């Protein structure tokens, strides 16, 4: 086994990733607050105490529920839009294609921070262009929970559909024309060829796109944090990631924040393992 090829990666990942993760697990079992950080008091082992506090708190279940709905909504819209546009890309003229791919690249390249800030400006209650055009002067888009989530969701989709679109389009282009010609000779129509040949050949790529979208959208942080100013009015737009961060840094409950982080990691772990199993069943090997 070529150990030396893996050594540089391990030299970075073990101390900077694996060890902090272990520390995160450890912290989630302790009562670790401001007095412990400053060294005033020793950390107190509470076992599963943080987790039972969390599970007994109705606020946690609300946040968990809206995180799942928000992430699922973003994933579905992103994938549907990205896939539809990827197919559209194969049916349009050169000028339209160039314009669409450059526009998508622009949205993709925009940092989450600047994207959030620009959309906030567009939807500003008083100076925003959207309210001006719609004649909704003074309407606050962040006041209602659902509307605020929809707005943040739109920014997330705007940032992430280009990855899906460009990846799938590149994949469709990479299908050898000879295969499609053979199918056409055998009497397959364009739709059949697409469904029976292109889609199955793209399966590994689709898998990457789906897993990545789930992972990214479940962990949205910057957009929520910046646009709803740390979780919305009275925390109504909190998602798990922001919730963990606020518990740790705003209320100095580092142990509790770590416990939320552990819960999130486990949820994503289950999702990915289910997906890997489904992949393996279709004959894909890792």
């Amino acid at each position, binding site marked *: 086994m070529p150990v030396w090829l893996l050594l540089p990666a391990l030299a970075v990942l073990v101390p900077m990733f694996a060890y902090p993760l272990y520390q995160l697990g450890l912290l989630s079992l302790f009562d670790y607050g401001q007095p412990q950080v400053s060294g005033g008091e020793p950390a107190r082992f509470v076992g599963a105490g943080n987790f039972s506090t969390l599970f007994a708190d109705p606020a946690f279940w609300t946040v968990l529920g809206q995180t799942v709905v928000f992430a699922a909504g973003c994933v579905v819209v992103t994938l549907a839009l990205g896939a539809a546009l990827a197919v559209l890309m194969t049916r349009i003229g050169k000028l339209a294609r160039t314009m669409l791919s450059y526009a998508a690249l622009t949205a993709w390249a925009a940092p989450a921070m600047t994207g959030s800030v620009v959309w906030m400006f567009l939807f500003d209650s008083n100076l925003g262009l959207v309210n001006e055009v719609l004649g909704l002067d003074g309407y606050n888009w962040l006041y209602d929970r659902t509307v605020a989530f929809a707005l943040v969701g739109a920014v997330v989709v*705007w940032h992430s559909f280009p990855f899906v679109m460009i990846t799938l389009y590149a994949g469709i282009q990479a299908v050898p024309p000879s295969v499609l010609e053979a199918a056409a000779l055998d009497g397959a129509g364009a739709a059949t060829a697409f469904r029976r040949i292109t889609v199955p050949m793209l399966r590994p790529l689709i898998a990457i796109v789906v897993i990545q979208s789930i992972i990214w959208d479940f962990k949205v*942080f910057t957009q929520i944090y910046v646009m709803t100013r740390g979780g919305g009015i009275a925390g109504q737009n909190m998602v798990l990631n922001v919730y963990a961060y606020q518990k740790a840094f705003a209320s100095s409950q580092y142990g509790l924040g770590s416990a939320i*982080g552990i819960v999130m990691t486990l949820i994503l772990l289950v999702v*990915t393992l289910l997906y890997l199993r489904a992949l393996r069943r279709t004959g894909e090997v890792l």
Partner: protein
Amino acid sequence: MRRRVADTVAILVALVTVFPIYWMVLSALKPTGEILSADPRPWTLHPTLDHFRSALGVSGFGRYFLNSLVVALAVVALSALVAFLAAVALTRYRFRTRSTILVLFLIAQMVPVEALSIPLFFQIRDLGRTVPGVGLNTLGSLVLVQLAFSLPFAIWMLRGFVAAVPPEVEEAATMDGASRFTILWRILFPLIAPGLAATSVFSFITAWNDFLFAKTFIISATENQTLPAALLVFFKPDENDWGGIMAASTLMTVPVLVFFVFVRRRLVSGLGGAVKD
């Protein structure tokens, strides 16, 4: 006819997609009076660089810009090198722990980075006491952390590109007497360049966009601050200086755009290369 409808839809989507960026650049160039006007127009007849001047001058964005660039480029270079070696090991060699390592890399991408900032803060603090240059308040600490978080995805993605190179190429080179080292750098490395370009985009963005670690690690040394955290300085809950915010946002977006356009061709062909045939 059908083609024309499709073209129109595509162009409309393109315009809507690019509009926020256009509005950002436009607002950065508008005089403050026009931004505050109740009748915003999608153009300006009096472009001004005032907002950029104040962002770069008074607010010191030039320095933050440079810091961000140094961190991002260091992460891209190191990540490409380390990920390439690991991807070769995980593609070209079969060993017992291979699948386990691959699954671990996938799992690593799921870890909520925000939660890890707690243990990492204490770790970076302690590390800085023994190794100068990577402790709190240094750009080195950001490079180290961003490198770690960009690696799992980079390795996962590069694997596909290495797998796409037929092993016969290397076998032929071995027959011709090339050493392992030569094969790695002179043959494999150039062949997966498109993949490296695609991967670099992700590493660059991870590093360039990060504001959490910059905020957590750079506490007192404001001269080592990076762009995203510095942008928050402009952001005031009630009286936002939108012109300044848009100028700073433009400064932060342009390098990524340039980088993207630069690698665009390789990016598309690279991602296509991940399809098996």
